[in-house]
């Protein structure tokens, strides 16, 4: 009973928050609503007994990702209303719903016929974090390490991209402009 109440409550809250994210005209509102939605989602993880995942969700999303977004938003003018031209709403909503249903159907199909066999069964009486740790560092060690490298790469990329002076783009300039830029650079070197 408690589980049901919790599920419906959080389901309602998550949907509401995310609905705000995609509809609001204020970027700040959207950010706030997204952060809230993330936290509510972690609630599902706790309900489902995936404690570790829930913790990660809060830490990574709400702690890191949202902070990153918040910093990012400082660069942009977020006080203004976001102006958006809108096309046919029916197509957007219809396509989305259809796609979502299809995804679910495909995922659900093998389960309906009950032919899924657990590869790494959840052992009763052992903490979720412990189990996750065991699987993560045995079977998924290489993906895990790759994910770590990927994060490192992403971090460096973020720093480089954000920090670089990008007032010139060689791809978008025509050849004369490139020549001009080269000359400028040479001048600097000479002087």
């Amino acid at each position, binding site marked *: 009973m408690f589980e049901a109440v919790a599920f419906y409550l959080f389901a309602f809250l998550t949907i509401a928050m995310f609905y705000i994210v*995609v509809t609001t005209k204020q970027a700040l509102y959207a950010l706030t609503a997204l952060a809230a939605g993330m936290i509510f989602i972690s609630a599902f993880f706790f309900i489902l007994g995936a404690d570790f995942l829930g913790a990660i969700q809060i830490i990574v999303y709400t702690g890191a990702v949202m902070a990153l*977004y918040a910093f990012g938003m400082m660069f*942009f003018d977020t006080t203004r209303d976001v102006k958006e031209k809108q096309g046919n709403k029916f197509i957007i909503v219809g396509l989305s719903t259809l796609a*979502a249903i299809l995804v*679910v159907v495909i995922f659900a199909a093998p*389960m309906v016929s009950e032919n899924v066999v657990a590869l790494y069964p959840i052992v009763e009486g052992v903490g979720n974090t412990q189990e996750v740790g065991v699987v993560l560092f045995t079977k998924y060690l290489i993906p895990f390490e790759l994910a770590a490298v990927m994060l490192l790469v992403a971090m460096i990329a973020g720093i480089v991209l954000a920090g670089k002076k990008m007032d010139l783009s060689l791809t978008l300039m025509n050849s004369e402009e490139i020549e001009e830029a080269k000359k400028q650079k040479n001048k600097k070197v000479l002087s």
Partner: protein
Amino acid sequence: MEIGLNHYLVLSTILFAIGLVGVMKRKNLLLLFFATEILLNSVNIAFAAISHYYGDLTGQMFAFFVIAIAASEVAVGLGLLIVWFKRHGNIDLDSMTSMRG
């Protein structure tokens, strides 16, 4: 009233739909990123739920990696976004047409 796997899947579907609506509707790149986060999260819920109901940890593992990917994506994406903003002074999707075929 027992909450079953189907409940979670329906929830995931709804969230995924909302995310897709956001992806298609949003013209502001930043908000587009938000919408992709919603998509990822909706899938995460489905993973966690399946993992729970089948007693298999693989689902959680996947959700875990999805989160890692989401984090990297944000880092790189925001970096790019900032670069773009510096050059053009806006992050409007409609202004990005250099990929015209």
